[in-house]
């Protein structure tokens, strides 16, 4: 790789004692993360199902709520997360090549995009608050109070996006910790596959949002 002026480091994996081969260890780690992601999907699935059933049972009330949701902030956030998945992929590819500095940059870019998402989301919650769209606040009137059926959908919106936000906060924390670990010289030689495993998780948070966005914001708008 000398022709583009990046020094490639050796990339490998340290064999843990319970495994017989490195291939076995790699496959086990990947399958383990996929199994975890399945549980994450099931965690959100209940909420998606609630939202969809509410859309069938109370279409008018739900449409009323969706017109109050901040479509453009949601859409921007979708783009932000897709970009962060791109930088995450860049981190994975460069980690395989052993380009440590490039990889660290891509990881930090991913963390920044994730934080940007959270900032925008926070601003969106503030606007919701400003527009009296929080029916669970006892001391604040609710703008759609005439429509009781709208409350549940709105609550599902807060819980779903809040749960997704919690996943992003954890994700960013782990990412920063991983970046710190990966900044050490021996990391790629012993633990390169951690970047790949983490990448699966990050892409998955992105994927969850890509389901959240149409289910809550877009359908029947």
């Amino acid at each position, binding site marked *: 790789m000398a022709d583009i002026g990046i020094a490639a480091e050796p990339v490998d994996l340290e064999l843990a*004692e319970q495994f017989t081969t490195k291939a076995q260890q790699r496959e086990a780690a990947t399958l383990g993360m996929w*199994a975890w992601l399945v*549980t994450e999907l*099931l965690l959100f699935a*209940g909420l998606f199902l*609630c939202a969809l059933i509410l859309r069938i049972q109370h279409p008018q009330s739900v449409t009323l709520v969706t017109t109050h949701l901040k479509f453009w902030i949601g859409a921007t956030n979708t783009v932000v997360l897709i970009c962060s998945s791109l930088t995450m992929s860049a981190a994975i590819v460069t980690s395989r090549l052993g380009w440590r500095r490039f990889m660290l940059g891509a990881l930090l870019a991913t963390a920044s995009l994730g934080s940007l998402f959270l900032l925008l989301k926070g601003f969106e919650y503030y606007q919701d608050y400003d527009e009296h769209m929080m029916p669970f606040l006892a001391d604040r009137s609710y703008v759609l109070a005439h429509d009781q059926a709208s409350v*549940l959908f709105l609550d599902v919106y807060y819980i779903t996006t809040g749960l997704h936000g919690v996943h992003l906060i954890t994700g960013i924390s782990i990412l920063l910790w991983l970046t710190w670990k990966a900044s050490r010289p021996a990391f790629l030689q012993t633990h390169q596959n951690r970047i790949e495993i983490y990448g699966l998780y990050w892409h998955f948070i992105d994927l969850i949002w890509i389901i959240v966005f149409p289910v809550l914001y877009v359908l029947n708008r």
Partner: protein
Amino acid sequence: MSPLDTVLRDPDTPRITLDRPADYLHAQHTLRSWFFTTDHKRIALLYLASITGFFILGACAAGLVRLSLVVPNGQIFSNDTYNKLFTMHGVIMIWFFLIPSIPATFGNFLIPLMIGAKDLAFPRLNLLSWYVFMLGSLFTIVVLIVGGVDTGWTFYAPFSTTYSNTYVIPALVGVIIVGFSSILTGLNFVVTIHKMRCPGMTWFRMPIFVWTHYAVSLIFLLGTPVITLALMLLVMERAFHIGVFDPRLGGDPVLFEHLFWFYSHPAVYIMVLPGMGVVTELVAAFSQKRVFGYKFVAYASIGLASITFLVWGHHMFVNGQSQLASTVFSFLSFAVAVPSAVKVYNWTATIHKGTIRLDTPMLYAMGYIGLFVLGGVTGLFLATLAVDAHLHDTYFVVAHFHYIMVGGTMLAFLGGLHYWWPKFTGRMYPEAWGRVGAFLIFIGFNVTFFPQFILGYLGMPRRYHSYPPEFQLLNVLSSAGSTILAVGYFFPLGYLIWSLWFGKKAPANPWQAKGLEWTTSSPPPAHNFLRTPVVDYQPYDYANKTRDNG
């Protein structure tokens, strides 16, 4: 047969006694070596000790409930105390004993041994899941004892979110935390079974015990997140008034029941499937016969795990669910009987014409089969729409699920504990005491719970602390039975602990059983096998008399 072939077929032969490494119990002695161990066998024993403690607590609560029900007017405890007692019994027994019982102890110990692996795929994650389990369960138990919760183990909304004046939120937080431990254990098992099998250990050479644990792990992975969500929503509603279940806050109470039972019905199979795995091993070993219809039993495990996700609505027949939904759920609940019956018939066919030995584990296995059939058949009564309208929320339901959970899971747990005790500890338990204990538990159990079928049929509702005086006789009978049951439980508790010091030293394979776990020493060395086993034979290879082991 070449000399090399003998070596591969029987890993026991080439062992040189002098070079033998210390077994996993004696490899290290410090307290630290137990609490920071990553050895799946030691973690299994940590689980065994903790759930035994929880079982004793849950059983004490049950004893107090039965004491209260000796008199019809509920004079012994106040209403509130009674509600807290049965909640304590249910929460501890279900969330902290039955769900982790067989998977976290036997599964943890035996899956790597049975598939010829050195450990689970993620040993540190395994230790973490024990700590997570202890954190959640101890927290909730302190809350239950110090403050008390009166919602029952089901936490139905809106009672749990709005009306109950007890410590619901802390109890829920503990149960949610324990859920993560289940998920991590299930994840570990799935990856281990997929990726860690030794050379030659194909899917259809795995013992049924491993198959049932695979099925259970799938339920852990697919079901637990949903209960985590449901309980989280309860916390949200109770703490922040984000209305999801309480109609006054814009919520829907039936929604909670849907989310709750989507996990909690499969949870019944988290409790039952591992028991089925244990009983399959016991029946084969004590009949010295290959499991009849091995592949069907394996498929039936996966079948049960799949169908059980589609029957949750049978808990809501009388809760305003649509007629169509109820009919479909009723039909699917009947369908569960098919894979269950496949298992029962295959066990009996395995015993048929076998070389039967009625040692303690086999007594428990026989008890299991009988009680599971009774529990299963009464389940069919409850799955029938019209009959359920009469029996819903009565003692008939209580008796039904105790036949499944105590008659099923608990007997399988005790049977398995005796069967693998030599492997766990390197000591034999006293056989005569074991048999007496098994009989006492069987009799005590039936005297306790059979009257409850009659009580329920006559219309006594569950969860009330007073009842009409004409029900007193049957209630007294049930309470009397529970004392026999309690005495029965003290037998294994006493002699198993005694055997740790005074029991006879166990040989590697005291039961002449087949299976890789019996080819290594009792107790096994730190990484299970001195050399990686190679499997070139079918499971339950009892027909092959030329080999003693494996």
